[in-house]
């Protein structure tokens, strides 16, 4: 079973990201599960979401403590939350940051980065103060891992993105093309 943990803030679309990823894997014939963990439904407050993907039915109903991949929708969380807690060795961390992977300090594991915020703002996703970066970061996820293909993510976006389906799909593709993958 592949376990992916999303870290974001309320309003950035972390929960939707987990769902879109699950649907994308489902389209590739996998069994999936996606669910959030937050106490406070507040714009800005830390939110965690989980996606589980497997060939056989996914039955475990608990949070993910040893993720294969971690997706960070907001790099300011790196200071507030230990996002890589329990990350399996060899696991990859996909971070929304306008920095090269090598310049990300304090995060172990293989790192991939993309400036999802800039891409989201460019495609008019959310507002300048509160951009919605989830579809962009999923493009980066497709690039940095072999869990799902970009086409499945785009298809899933077209199905379930609540609004601006085309712009969201574009954002995912653009992120895919601009994702930088670190060496370690």
């Amino acid at each position, binding site marked *: 079973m592949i376990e992916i943990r999303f870290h974001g803030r309320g309003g950035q679309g972390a929960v939707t990201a987990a769902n879109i990823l699950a649907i994308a894997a489902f389209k590739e014939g996998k069994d999936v599960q996606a669910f959030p963990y937050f*106490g406070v439904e*507040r714009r*800005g407050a830390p939110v965690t979401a989980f996606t589980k993907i497997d060939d056989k039915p996914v039955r475990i109903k608990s949070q993910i403590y040893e993720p294969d991949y971690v997706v960070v929708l907001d790099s300011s969380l790196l200071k507030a939350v230990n996002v890589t807690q329990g990350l399996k060795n060899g696991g990859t961390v996909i971070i929304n940051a306008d920095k090269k992977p090598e310049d990300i300090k304090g995060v172990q594991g293989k790192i991939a980065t993309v400036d999802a915020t800039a891409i989201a703002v460019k495609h008019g996703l959310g507002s300048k*103060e509160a951009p919605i970066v989830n579809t962009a970061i999923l493009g980066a996820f497709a690039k940095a891992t072999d869990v799902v293909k970009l086409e499945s993510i785009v298809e899933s976006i077209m199905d379930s993105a609540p609004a601006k389906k085309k712009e969201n799909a574009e954002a995912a593709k653009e992120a895919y093309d601009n994702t930088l993958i670190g060496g370690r």
Partner: protein
Amino acid sequence: MAKLTIPREEYMFPGHMGCLGCGGVLAMRYVLKALGKRTIVSVPACCWAIMSGIFPNSCLSVPMVNTAFETTGASVSGIRAALDALGIKDVNVLGWAGDGGTLDIGIQALSGAVERGHDIIYVCYDNEAYMNTGIQRSSGTPEGAWTTTTPVGKTKAWKKGPKKNMVEIMVAHKIPYTATAAISYPEDLIKKVTKAKNIYGPKYIHIFSPCPTGWRMPPGKSVEIARLAVQTCAFPLYEIENGVYNITKKPKKKPLKDYLQMQGRFRHLPEEEIQKMQKDVDREWEILLKKEEFTKSL
């Protein structure tokens, strides 16, 4: 060098869980500036129950208790009765609930509390929908508004029917003091809360508290939208003392459209609906002017 127009003392700490630009936070900050340290706050399920702090942190420097959704009126009755029984004097007992907790699920306990005449101040911070659970319609939601349970769609399913007028319901209870206030006029708000503080018996204050998240508008516009609400007479500022109406802000009326168009929750409204709403606002304003004139003449 300007002088401050509101008391400087703060009873609220930074670091609460309010959303960016939350009107309800400003409402509490101002009310406590008027009431001061010797205040006990009873808060039911609502945004304030969460943003006041997650264990082990509180964002107020006064005692606060979280209670069940329906119970604010009963909870403040219990606090006042206990203070009287224990002979503890000059403590303000403040019931603090949202529009849902006041106009819907909590109306029974509130009506009971004020009818019994307990010496309490009840504030409804009105953000016009169930915001803590993610913007569902309440009876405080204005006509025409989008919410997640009035999602417009193809059938024009925006919120139908007028906003429930809680102030008039409180006036019908013949309580000594009722007032409306808005976070855009903190001086007016604080003056009214101070007046309420010095009146014995049940007092009700309805505070217009914009919610940028729920009204689909930029957080920076909270105060401005609350100002526009008053200037367009969508939310008039007035007080009723023992049945006598007194309007505390008589603006040069701006068109309602100025107020509506800044908010995503009204963006779907066709022109004729806006015109209808403009007529309603005009008519209500005329009624209010007449009430003031009439009750002052008695």
